[in-house]
Structure formats: structure tokens, C-alpha cells
């Protein structure tokens, strides 16, 4: 067994929340620069130029990339030989989110009793925590700051098995089309296929953690990702929805087995401010 102090986890999560909100990953920035080269629409090009400048200004001025600092979604991969000491693991993560969002001057966007009172918790908590037990004695923490606009336009489809590959393509493309400019394109499109209603959404969200443009290692899935990206970029939505040839920077799909009666498909849309940071303890 390896001991990890709960206080250490809090500090790490706090730092990850701040870094994720202030620093756009190199993979996203590279994808935006490439998109700017290829975009055919003058308005679209201008939008992409603004987004590239925005990433620089955010870092220089220590401002969040986007004012919507998101829901803190925290993925924990806990080695089975890890022993958390000096506190409760979930509380340690929550305290890290509270500190990070306060210290980093990040917007607190979580409301309690969402269907009635909608009172802001004023400290960005609670985060959404996904915990997985894995072999080993390490703790991997990934913080994803997920904006509301793109999350709102995400969808679950319980297709019939007969719908097949074409059904999956049509559902994903339709979801992106309906989102239009609301989800802040150019998007990273996370797709989950298989599993159950709960698991397929998680697959789609986890797909967003891949480096932008890194295709699936499975040949068939990689081909699906490429075809989806082509179809999506033919929609004409473009950066910010004001027309163009770059609607998505990448499509990432994750697949798992499903029930004989089911073909679950989940689309988790990610705006161009694809913010996530990780640390291994």
C-alpha cells in the first residue's frame, strides 16, 4: 500500500482547475492555427484569429480562456494499492475545486436545486467525480472544465441495432447541425457507442480527453471518426456559426459492447475551449 495525503490531493486539484482554465492545450492551439489556414469564410477566419489571440491574452493576463469556467468534472484513476490518508478522497477533491475556483478568480457556475430555486453555491462545488479503480499504486487526477453551452447541446440516442453505422453517422451529424452556433464551434465532438445509457455518455465524455485530432487506435473506429469529421465540416456552420468550412476540429469516438437489443450513441459536444489538465500522484 502507498499512502497519499488527502491535503496533497486538494492542492493538486486546485492547481489543475486554475491551469485548465487559463492555459489552452498546445493540441487545441495547433488545431485552431491549422483551421485558420484552411477556413474559407472571411468571417470564420476572423473568428479563428480572435480565438488564437484570446488564448495568448488569457495566459498573459491570467484570465480564464472563457468566462464560463464550467462544471469541474474530475476523473480519478485510483490504483488499488493506494491508501488515501488524512481525509476523505471525495471531500479532498471538492475542497480542491473550491480553492482553485476561488484563488483563480474563476466563475462559479453551479446552482443548487436546479429545477426551482437555482441558488448559486458560490464556490463551484460540487464537482462531478468519476472514480475508477485500476491496478498499481498511483493516483491519476484529470480535471475537465466543461462549459454549459456545449454541454446543453449534447445528446443521447438509443438507436435500434438495424440503424447500424449509417444510423450512428446520421445521429451525430444531426446533433451537431442542431447545435449550430450555440455550442461554440469549432467543436471537438466526443462520441460514445455501445454500453448502456449511463456508460455511453461517459464514453463520449472520456473521448474528449484525448489529444485533439488523435484518432482511435482501432482501425474501424478511426475510419468512422474521419468520415464523421468530413460530414460535419460539410454542414457549413463554421466558426461561431457564421458560416464556414471548419465546424469541428476533431471527432473522437470510443466504443464498447452493447446489449443484443441496443445501439446506444452519445454525443458530447466540446466547444473549442477544450480545457482539461491531469496529474499523477
Amino acid at each position, binding site marked *: 500500500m502507498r499512502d497519499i495525503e488527502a491535503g496533497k490531493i486538494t492542492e493538486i486539484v486546485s492547481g489543475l482547475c486554475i491551469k485548465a482554465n487559463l492555459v489552452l492545450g498546445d493540441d487545441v492551439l495547433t488545431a485552431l492555427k491549422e483551421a485558420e489556414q484552411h477556413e474559407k469564410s472571411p468571417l470564420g477566419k476572423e473568428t479563428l484569429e480572435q480565438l488564437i489571440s484570446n488564448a495568448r491574452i488569457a495566459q498573459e493576463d491570467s484570465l480564464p480562456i472563457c468566462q464560463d469556467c464550467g462544471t469541474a468534472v474530475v476523473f480519478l484513476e485510483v490504483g488499488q494499492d493506494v491508501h488515501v490518508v488524512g481525509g476523505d478522497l471525495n471531500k479532498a477533491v471538492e475542497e480542491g475545486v473550491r480553492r482553485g475556483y476561488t484563488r483563480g*478568480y474563476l466563475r462559479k457556475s453551479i446552482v443548487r436545486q436546479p429545477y426551482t430555486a437555482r441558488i448559486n453555491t458560490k464556490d463551484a462545488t460540487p464537482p462531478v467525480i468519476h472514480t475508477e479503480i485500476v491496478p498499481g499504486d498511483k493516483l491519476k487526477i484529470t480535471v475537465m472544465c466543461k462549459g454549459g*453551452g456545449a454541454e446543453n447541446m449534447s445528446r443521447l440516442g438509443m438507436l435500434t441495432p438495424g440503424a447500424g453505422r449509417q444510423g450512428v453517422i446520421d445521429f451525430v451529424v444531426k446533433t451537431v447541425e442542431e447545435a449550430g452556433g450555440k455550442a*461554440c464551434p469549432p467543436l471537438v465532438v466526443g462520441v460514445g457507442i455501445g454500453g448502456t445509457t449511463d456508460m455511453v455518455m461517459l464514453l463520449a465524455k472520456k473521448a474528449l480527453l484525448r489529444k485533439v485530432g488523435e484518432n482511435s487506435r482501432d482501425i474501424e473506429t478511426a475510419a468512422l471518426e474521419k468520415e464523421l469529421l468530413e460530414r460535419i465540416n460539410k454542414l457549413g456552420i463554421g466558426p461561431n456559426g457564421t458560416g464556414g468550412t471548419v465546424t469541428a476540429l476533431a471527432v473522437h469516438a470510443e466504443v464498447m459492447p452493447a446489449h443484443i437489443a441496443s445501439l446506444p450513441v452519445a454525443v458530447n459536444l466540446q466547444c473549442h475551449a477544450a480545457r482539461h489538465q491531469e496529474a499523477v500522484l
Partner: protein
Amino acid sequence: MTVPLKIKSPFTDAEMAKLKAGMSVLISGVIYVARDAAHKRLIEAMDKDEKLPFDFKGQTVYYMGPSPAPPGKVIGSAGPTTSGRMDVYTPRLLSAGLKAMIGKGHRSTAVREAIVKNKAVYFVATGGAAALLSKSIKKSETIAYADLGAESVLRLEVVDFPAVVANDIYGADVFEQEQKKYKQ
């Protein structure tokens, strides 16, 4: 890219008439910030004939909820939020004299009709360009509903705030107009 047109808020009908969907503009002057929760309260106040935090006539509403201002800064990051969520409230505000809105994403048919009817304009700013847009904001003051935190009503003074005309007084829509050029 054509040179952006410099315009000043609050707006007159004559100024609105110059704006066409797809035009880039730089907005200076005074704009008010209100998003979901503030809109709900504004409508409730109108229902009860209560005094509103500001007179809508000729004014611009920016759908936005900023991040907190770090020490020494006027405001934190300040990009647009999705306008569609305000669609249910917008026609009422336009009838009361509101002239312009800034947000992101397309609007409902009802809002588009109300825009034409009231000779108003809907602008889009770049969603996610929040640090860049904050540079155009020179002054920020909370004028109502401070308890809503990031959703309170603010009065901003802006200089050369970049936006694109999305819906104009003639009924044109930038999304329809531009997306079809690139749809394959």
C-alpha cells in the same frame, strides 16, 4: 475582410438601418449585461409594473456572465453566452424599446419576427473569445440583482467591442445567409 463599421450604443433607428447581416462592427458606448436569471426578474418586474433597473429605450443588452475581476482589472473574462435561452423573454424587452442584443448562436422565429417589427438588431460576438473581449470593456458597474452574482445586471462602458450583425431590421439572418455558402 472589410473594415469593421464603428457604431455607438444606445442606438437610433437611423443607425439600425445601416446595419446588414454579416457586417463586422466595433461597438462603443454603454451596454447592459443580463442573462438567464436577470431576464426572469426583469419580466417579473414588468408584470408587476415595477421600476426597471434601466430604461430599455435604444439600449443594448449583452448576454453575459463574467468571471470575477482579478485585482487591478475592470472585469474578468467576458464572452457571450447562448442567446437562445433568452428567446422566451426577448419579444417583451423589444416591445419595451430594447434596440440591440449581443450573444452567440441563432434565435427563435418569434425573436426574429420581433427584431424586424421593432427595428432592432441582434449581434453575435465570438463565443469563447472572453479574455479578448474583456479588453474592450473599460468600466463595469453592478446596477441590479447583485445577489445573482455572475448573473447580476451590469452597466458596461465599451470601446471597439467586436461583433457581427446576425439579424438585421430587414429580416436577414447571418446563419442562414453564410452557412448556405459553405454547405456541401
